C-alpha cells in the first residue's frame, strides 16, 4: 500500500494537491464482501470469471495459467459483441467510417511499401521504428535520428568527414544484406533499398569508408 501511495506522490507531485490522500477506506477494501459473504464478491484483479488472485501493479494475468488464458480468450470473443458499448451515439459513429476506412487504407498502403525500418543504436536498450517516406532527404533523417536518440547522450551524428568530435555514424543494411554507410547514394535509391538502420560507433564505421575507397 505504502509503495503505491509513494508512487502516486511521485507521479503527481506537480499538482497543487501534491499529497494524494486516499480515503482510509482504501485499506478496508479487502474486507468488503457481498451480502451472501461468498468469495465471488471478493475484490481481485482481472475480468469477472477469471481465477487470478495475485495483486500486482500490473494488470497482467499470471503467465503460466492456461485456464485463465482460455477464459480470457473466451471473454475477449464475447467482448466483441456488446451492444451499445462504449456509449457513443450511432450518429457520431457513422460520421467517421469514410475517414477511418481511408486512414486504414493509407496505413496499409504505407506498410506494404515497406518504408518502415527499424533503427538500432549500439548501447541503447531498445530499437525505434521510423517511416522513411516522411523524410525529404538525408538532412531531415539525421536531424530526426539525432532528436530521437539524444536521450542516450550522444554526440552529434555526423557524416564521415566530420572526423573531429564525430562519435557515431549512421549505417544501413540494404536489400542484399550488406552494411552500408548512409549518405552515399541518392535519397530515392536509399529509401527503396534500405531495410534497417544502425547507428554505430564512429571507429567501427571507418572500416566501411576505407573499404569503399
Amino acid at each position, binding site marked *: 500500500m505504502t509503495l503505491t501511495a509513494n508512487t502516486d506522490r511521485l*507521479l503527481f507531485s506537480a499538482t497543487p494537491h501534491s499529497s*494524494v490522500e*486516499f480515503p482510509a477506506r*482504501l485499506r478496508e477494501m479487502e474486507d468488503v464482501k*457481498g451480502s*451472501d459473504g461468498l468469495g465471488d464478491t471478493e475484490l481481485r484483479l482481472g475480468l469477472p470469471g477469471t481465477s487470478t488472485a495475485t*495483486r500486482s501493479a500490473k494488470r497482467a494475468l499470471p503467465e503460466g495459467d492456461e485456464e485463465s488464458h482460455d477464459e480470457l480468450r473466451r471473454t475477449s470473443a464475447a467482448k466483441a459483441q456488446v451492444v451499445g*458499448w462504449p*456509449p457513443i451515439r*450511432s450518429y457520431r459513429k457513422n460520421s467517421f467510417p469514410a475517414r477511418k476506412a481511408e486512414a486504414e487504407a493509407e496505413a496499409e498502403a504505407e506498410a506494404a511499401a515497406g518504408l518502415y525500418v527499424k533503427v538500432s543504436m549500439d548501447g541503447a536498450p531498445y530499437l525505434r521504428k521510423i517511416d522513411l517516406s516522411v523524410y525529404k532527404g538525408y538532412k531531415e533523417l539525421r536531424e530526426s535520428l539525432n532528436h530521437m536518440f539524444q536521450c542516450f547522450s550522444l554526440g552529434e551524428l555526423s557524416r564521415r568527414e566530420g572526423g573531429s568530435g564525430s562519435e557515431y555514424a549512421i549505417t544501413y543494411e540494404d536489400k542484399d544484406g550488406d552494411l552500408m554507410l548512409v549518405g552515399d547514394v541518392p535519397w530515392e535509391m536509399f529509401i527503396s533499398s534500405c531495410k534497417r538502420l544502425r547507428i554505430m560507433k564512429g571507429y567501427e564505421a571507418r572500416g566501411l569508408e576505407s573499404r569503399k575507397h
Partner: protein
Amino acid sequence: MTEDCDGEEKDEETRRWSPGQGGSSSRGGGSGTSSSSPLKNRCVRGRVDQPPPFSGQVLENVLENVLQFLACRRDRNAASLVCRSWYRAEARTRLELFIGNCYAVSPARALGRFRCARALVLKGRPRFADFNLVPVGWGARFSPWVAAMAAAYPWLERVCLKRMTVSDADLALLARSFSSFRDLTLICCDGFGTPGLAAVAELCRNLRVLDLIENDVEDEDEEVVDWISRFPETDTCLESLSFECVNCPVNFVALEALVARSPCLRRLRVNQHVSVGQLRCLMVRAPQLTHLGTGSFETVPVADGAAELDVAELESSFVASKSLVCLSGFRMVAPEYLPAIYPVCAGLVSLNLSYAMTTAEQLKPVILRCHNLQTFWVLDTVGDEGLRAAAKTCKHLRELRVFPFEATEDSESAVSDAGLVAISEGCQKLRSILYFCQRMTNAAVVTMSKNCQDLVVFRLCIMGRHRPDHITGEPMDEGFGAIVMNCKKLTRLAVSGLLTDKVFEYIAKYGKLVRTLSVAFAGNSDLSLRYVLEGCHKLQKLEIRDSPFGDAGLLSGIHHYYNMRFLWMNSCKLSLRGCKEVAQRLPRLVVEVFGDQNKELDSDAVEKLYLYRSLVGPRDDVPSFVKIL
C-alpha cells in the same frame, strides 16, 4: 391530487407519493386553507377554501399578474401547490410546458390543465435508446401530441422534442395548424425526412428557429425533397438554422439566396455537403453570424477553371465575422484550412472540434488563441498533449467533452489520466466533463475532485469494461468516491471501470444532490443498488446496464420510485417475480419489461426493465415485444 407534469423537484412533505395511498398528497383542499378573511364564516357549505366572490376574483387577477414573472418550472410547481386559487392562477399563466417523460401524462390531461401554454418541451425514449438498447418501434410518438395541440393551442409558438418519433405527417400538421409558430427544435429524433422539413419551411411563415440536432433523417433516394427552396421568397425572420444531421446535399444556390434574405440570421449550421468554398460565400452573405457550423471545411474537386479556395481568402471571411462566438462542424477538416479561424479564436466562447481528427500539433495554434473559451468539444486524437495546451490557455473553461475517435473497447486512445490531471489543474472553473479514455487512475480522478470543486456533471467512460486503475491495479472506487465527496454541487454522475459495491456506498453517502446516475458493468451485489436507492434522496433518473443487481436491489427502491422520473435496467439479474411485485405495490408506476425485439418473453429472467411514474396508467401504444406488468 397533484398533477405535476415534469416531476422534477418535489417538496418532500407535500408531494412524496407514498405507496398504497393512491398517490394523493395533501394540498390545501378540505383541510382548511386558513383564509384570514373575516367573511370566512359565511361559507356555509363547508368548502372552506372558497373565498368570498369579489375579493377572490381580485386576488386571482393579482396573482396571475405576479405569477407571470415566475419562469422557473420548479418555482411554478411549488406555487401551484399552495391552494386551489394559486393552482388555477398558475395553470393559466404557465407559458412553457416541460414534460420530461411523454408517457407520464397524456396530451389531454396536460393540455386540459395548462390552457394557455405557448411552448412545449417533450422528451420521449430513455437515454439508453441512443446506444441501440431500446428496440425500434418502442414508442414515443409525437402524433397524439400534435393532434391534441392542433385543437387546443392555436397560438402555439415553440416545440422542442428529444428522442421522439416524428413523422413527415406530424411536421405537416404542425406547420398547418399554428399560425404564430416560430421555433422548432428536434434533438435525437427520428421518423421524418426532407418532405417534413419542406412542409415546415413552406408553411411556417413566422419561423425563426429550425434546429435539427443529431436526428436520424432518413430519406429514400428518390424521395429527397429540395426543402431549402421552399422557404418563402420574401425576407424571412429566420434567426437560427441548423441542419448538420440532414445527410443529403442541399441546393446551395437556394441556401445562399435564403441566407441573403434572412437579415436576422444569427446561427447557421450547415451539413457536410457544404464545402469550404461554399461556406465562404455564406459567410460573406451573413457577416453578423454569432454561431457557425462550418460543414465539411474541406474543398471538393471543382470543375475546371474554378480556382481552389485560398486560405487567406477564407481567413478574411473570418476576420469579417466579428460576432462569432461559437464554432462547430469541421466534419472533414482539411488541416491547411484550420488556421483561417485564428482571427475569431479570441472571441470564441464555444468550439466543437469533435468531428475533426486533429492532432495535438494542429490543435495547439488554435487553442492557444482561445482565451475565452467556455465550452470545448474535441476528439481524443489530440491526445494528452492537446489537452495540456487547452488547460494552459482556457482558464474559463466550463464544459469539456473528449470523444473517442475509435469507439471500441480495445482501441488505442491518446488521452489518459495525464490529460485529466492537466485539465483539472488548468481549468479549475470546470462544471461539466465528459471524458472517454482507455487508461485512468484513481489518483487522477481524486486530483480532479480537489481542483474542480464546481463540478456539476462528471461523466467518465473508461472504454474497456471492468478496467481497473492502470497503475495500481485497484478498482476505481476511490476516484469516484472522491468526486462525490469533494464536488458538493454534483448532480449528474456516470461511472465506469472496475467498480465494487464500495463506490455505491460512497455515492449514497456523499452524493446527496445527485439527480442522474449512469451505471454500466459495475458493482458486486444488490447492496450497490440498495445503497443508491436509499441514500440518494434527490435521485431522479437511474440507468443501469450489465450489473449484477437483482430483485432484492430493485425492491429496496419501492419507497423512492414515485419521486423519480424513471429507472432503466438492462442485462442485470432481475426476474419477472420481482418486477411484478414492484408493479403491484406501486399502482401509479408503469413497469415495462421487454427483451430484444424478436424474442419471446417466456423465461422468468427480465432482460430489460423500464419503470416510470405516470398519471395515466399503462400507455395504449404498447408494441408486441413490451409487456406492462
